[in-house]
């Protein structure tokens, strides 16, 4: 929202604060100022000048004009405007004036020295009229009336979301007056509302959707350009001047935050205006030229023939003001915020009106705006006449109950004492009504423009007082609360441990997006239709929520392979799966994915074994069990990871077809399963007091028989005396027959209560050998 500094100054008596300082004050006490734009700085130097004489310059359209400028004496200028003629009063810009990006210099044009220039409204930034130089009706030397240097203060709309009143200059001026301690002027004279019978009838079937509809009818209207001051003011407010009637509606809206609309009375059918829901199939061509299909959820303004406006959003083309308009209906209405917002969202049409209405405007404001309209229209359309009295339909609403404000409570909320007199004066400067309810408790009445949504609780008054005293005046203080040990978040602490351990082992943490596309989903074996889908994705390849971290990790592998021979990375994040039956929300599971990739591995499957070790470090005693591969896994390099009886994840190599060169091994762990499997307590095992004995055994087995399986068989046969069993090496090749390998283990055995004799050790060894031979294994002893 853009505010004209001059307009605010006009409303605040004796305001001396400069725009830049005001920007700071408004930001600290009311709403965020995004910036200040100085406009019309050149207007301080521009003055009215009478053209004394005009001589044509041969061979050009230009003329040599002598002008009496009053302020700068008599000057000679070259002018190309078609309306430049002797006797006229126009605007003179002296040499040396900056006009936009350029500086007007004294220069020779067509052999004539031009000392300054005569300017059009567009050149002066007053309006968009570039047809000719300005036609003024003031004495030479005087400034252009109502057109002084100004500054546009831009306020962040987001910070006005809760303040319907700040969508108009009068509301902002009230803030400025309260902040600077000046008196606020009211631009409205309520006595200008005419008495008498209205000449249009208003029908509102549902006052919830349209709490109030007020209108006046005028005749003898002249549609033309607005006076310069109004065009310039609208420009400073960021609005485009169009014609006097439309400009009047826009100016009133910018002043009072009350959107207005003018209908051409002669284009309305009948004399009843209805604010009713649209009928199925109704459509309207709006002022922007677009056609809109309306639905019963949309409120329309209708005449006898059909919709003439979308309520609170935009007017219709058919009843728009035109050059031939002679009678107008001036609408000033109040519409339900939610309804306007829904319609505006559905039609994808946000207008200055809808933006204001969706903030819950004050129904009492409709007639204030009309009272001001009467005065304004008399100025901008001389000769205009009211027809009949005020048409006004509304459902009376009880005034909101006053708020009790205990002063001690206020002090405790803010953390600082404030005197009762100061609280009263702050609230009164913002036009709250204040009286003393009981000693130490104020009774505060909320003004109607703050009561629609903004202020209803005593907490809301804390803000009113706090922001005006300035939060900087509150000393920081630690709270007086009981010391309590915070509840532990075991899962999160554990995840931090996992992160630290992986980083220390050489893995770099990545964060990937939660979105994937259908193609990536299919590549990882998911049917896109079975995943959680985004209704309004940012792009079609980001329309699904990731059911796995792996598509992201795969992308990391492909992209980083361009820059690195080998690399290690990991991610911790949520997998998102469709909700389980009976659950509200999708199933969101913390997962860990670790990846080690290399163009050239130092030894076969080095990356896989490195990740196996990482898994063992995270989960001491974890077992890896080969399983059927998934479609994205290497066909014979895939396993699950078991820990304390729970399958917690998978260890595999990405299918080589997915990695351009080299290999990428992945460990994918369900952190919730891991957390479930994690033993709660560790318990110390006493260190053996008696020596143990060790011996080696070599077992001949099929090439693809799992070493882990043989180890388990040996361990089972060794039974209770087994202290440890350790893989030593494996070998295939002569003298072993083809298809066979020899696997060597070192077994350590011991007794709990003494040293085993060599006979006892021999017996254990013999038992193992016998057992293995009975199972069909050959042992190399």
């Amino acid at each position: 929202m853009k505010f004209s500094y001059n307009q605010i100054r006009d409303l605040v008596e004796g305001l001396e604060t400069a725009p830049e300082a005001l920007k700071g004050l408004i930001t600290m006490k009311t709403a965020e100022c995004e910036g200040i734009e100085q406009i019309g700085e050149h207007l301080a130097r521009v003055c009215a000048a009478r053209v004394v004489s005009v001589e044509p310059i041969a061979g050009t359209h230009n003329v040599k004009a002598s002008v009496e400028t009053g302020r700068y004496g008599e000057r000679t200028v070259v002018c190309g405007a078609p309306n430049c003629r002797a006797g006229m009063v126009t605007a003179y810009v002296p040499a040396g004036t900056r006009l936009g990006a350029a500086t007007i210099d004294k220069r020779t044009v067509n052999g004539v020295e031009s000392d300054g220039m005569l300017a059009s409204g567009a050149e002066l930034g007053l309006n968009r009229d570039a047809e000719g130089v300005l036609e003024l009706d003031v004495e030479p030397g005087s400034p252009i009336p109502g057109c002084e240097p100004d500054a546009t203060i831009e306020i962040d709309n987001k910070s006005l979301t809760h303040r319907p009143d700040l969508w108009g200059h009068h509301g902002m001026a009230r803030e400025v007056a309260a902040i600077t301690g000046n008196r606020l002027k009211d631009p409205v004279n309520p006595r200008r509302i005419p008495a008498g019978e209205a000449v249009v009838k208003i029908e509102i079937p549902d006052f919830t959707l349209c709490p109030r509809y007020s209108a006046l009818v005028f005749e003898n209207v002249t549609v033309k350009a607005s006076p310069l001051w109004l065009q310039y003011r609208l420009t400073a407010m960021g609005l485009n001047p169009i014609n006097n009637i439309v400009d009047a509606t826009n100016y009133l809206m910018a002043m009072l935050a009350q959107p207005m609309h003018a209908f051409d009375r002669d284009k309305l059918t009948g004399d009843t205006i209805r604010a009713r829901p649209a009928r199925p199939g109704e459509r309207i061509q709006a002022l922007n030229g677009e056609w809109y299909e309306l639905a019963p959820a949309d409120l329309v303004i209708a005449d006898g023939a059909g919709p003439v406006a979308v309520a609170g959003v935009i007017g219709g083309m058919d009843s728009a003001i035109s050059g031939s308009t002679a009678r107008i209906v001036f609408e000033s209405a109040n519409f339900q915020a939610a309804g306007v917002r829904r319609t505006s969202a559905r039609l994808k049409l946000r207008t200055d009106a809808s933006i204001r209405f969706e903030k819950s405007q004050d129904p009492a404001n409709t007639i204030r705006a009309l009272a001001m309209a009467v005065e304004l229209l008399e100025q901008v359309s001389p000769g205009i006449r009211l027809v009949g009295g005020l048409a006004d339909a509304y459902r009376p609403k009880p005034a909101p109950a006053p708020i009790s404000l205990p002063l001690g409570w206020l002090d405790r909320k803010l953390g600082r004492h404030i005197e009762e007199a100061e609280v009263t004066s702050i609230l009164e400067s913002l036009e709250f009504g204040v009286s003393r309810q009981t000693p130490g408790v104020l009774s505060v009445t909320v003004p109607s423009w703050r009561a629609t949504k903004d202020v209803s609780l005593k907490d809301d008054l804390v803000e009113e007082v706090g922001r005006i005293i300035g939060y900087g005046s509150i000393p920081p203080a630690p709270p007086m609360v009981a010391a309590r040990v915070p509840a532990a978040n075991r899962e999160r602490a554990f995840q931090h441990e996992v992160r630290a351990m992986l980083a220390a082992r050489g893995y770099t943490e990545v964060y990937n997006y939660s979105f994937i596309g259908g193609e990536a989903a299919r590549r990882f074996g998911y049917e896109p239709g079975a995943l959680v889908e985004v209704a309004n994705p940012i792009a079609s390849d980001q329309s699904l929520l990731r059911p796995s971290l792996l598509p992201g990790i795969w992308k990391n592998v492909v992209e980083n392979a361009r820059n690195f021979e080998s690399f290690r990375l990991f991610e911790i994040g949520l997998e998102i799966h469709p909700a389980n039956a009976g659950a509200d929300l999708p199933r969101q599971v913390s997962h860990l994915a670790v990846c080690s990739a290399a163009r050239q591995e130092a030894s076969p499957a080095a990356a896989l074994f490195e990740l196996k070790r990482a898994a063992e470090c995270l989960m001491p005693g974890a077992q890896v069990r080969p399983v059927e591969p998934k479609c994205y896994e290497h066909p014979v390099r895939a396993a699950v990871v078991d820990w304390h009886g729970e399958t917690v994840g998978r260890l595999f190599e990405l299918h080589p077809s997915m990695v351009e060169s080299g290999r990428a091994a992945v460990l994918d762990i369900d952190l919730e399963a891991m957390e479930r499997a994690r033993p709660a307590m560790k318990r110390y095992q006493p260190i053996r007091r008696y020596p143990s004995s060790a011996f080696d055994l070599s077992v001949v087995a099929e090439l693809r028989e799992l070493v882990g399986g043989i180890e388990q068989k040996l361990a089972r046969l060794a039974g209770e005396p087994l202290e440890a069993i350790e893989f030593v090496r494996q070998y295939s090749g002569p003298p072993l027959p083809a298809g066979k390998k020899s696997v060597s283990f070192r077994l350590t055995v011991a007794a709990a209560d003494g040293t085993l004799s060599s006979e006892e050790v021999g017996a254990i060894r013999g038992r193992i050998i016998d057992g293995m031979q009975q199972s069909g294994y050959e042992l190399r002893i």
Partner: protein
Amino acid sequence: MIEQTFERLESRSRERIAAAMSREELEAVRVDVLGRKGELARISKEMGSLTAEERARVGKLLNGAKQGLEAALEARKAEFDRAALAARLDAEWVDLTLPATGAPRGSLHPITIIQSEIEDLFVSMGFTVLDGPEVETEYNNFDALNIPPDHPARDMQDTFWLKSGQLLRTHTSPVQVRGMQKLGPPLRMIAPGRVFRNEEVDASHEHTFYQLEGMMVDREVSVGNLIYFMKTLLSSIFRKDVTVRLRPGYFPFVEPGFELDIECLICGGAGCPVCKQSGWVELLPCGLVQPNVLRMSGIDPEEWNGFAFGLGLTRLAMMRYAIDDIRLLQGGDLRFLHQF
């Protein structure tokens, strides 16, 4: 007479020991002098012909010479050992400027680093760390935070909706709701996490970023307390005393609501491009918890009150490390991530 013999023998032998160039030569000297058939043995054999008195005297000389020579031999031998060891070790010269082996160091994501620091700080001040889901209900993300349907504040956050009607949380604030329901008053909690806004991505905008929500509910919680916590937090993050200011800001779930700015760390408040010449950088929204929000979560606002804040972790990480492109954070490029 016999003394001279010993003296001569001893000095000659010492010369030979000193002259020996190897352990073998030294051994030859030992055999010649101290060996079973060596010179000292020969002398001791001749002692039989001496008187008892002389025998004792010569025996003493003999022992003296023997011990002296043995010590000289040992000392010389030790010299050879030292030299041999030195030679062997010298052959083991390595170039320590060669690269280290083993996996090079990995690293944590910059947001993880900042997040952990802030978690530790708040835990030390009695706050519990809570987690919440990334897919949320519309109720928790909006309604329970005093943002009913058709409230214009819903525009402040472009929401990713799911086909199921749920949404990707637009802020970590729904964890406030979960926290109030789970912990009950009094409570102190923070909730870091990933949030989503349906926004076009460029160097300074992301659809996925990180926030840290904080909330304290107790009997008497004031704006002054809020300022205290925020100052402590920011001074800890930036490792220096930071100047903060509160100004009005509108968030439906707090009343009063604030925007907290810190004095620009780049220019110290003088004005620079980072702070758009204002000297201040907008950092976090905060405020006292709106009574309706407490009430909707079953907490009586007449009895309890509190503050809440939302810290942009992504933004903080960018400030701390001077990261100028937000897309790097989720780009997965190890050339970037290795640096932390």
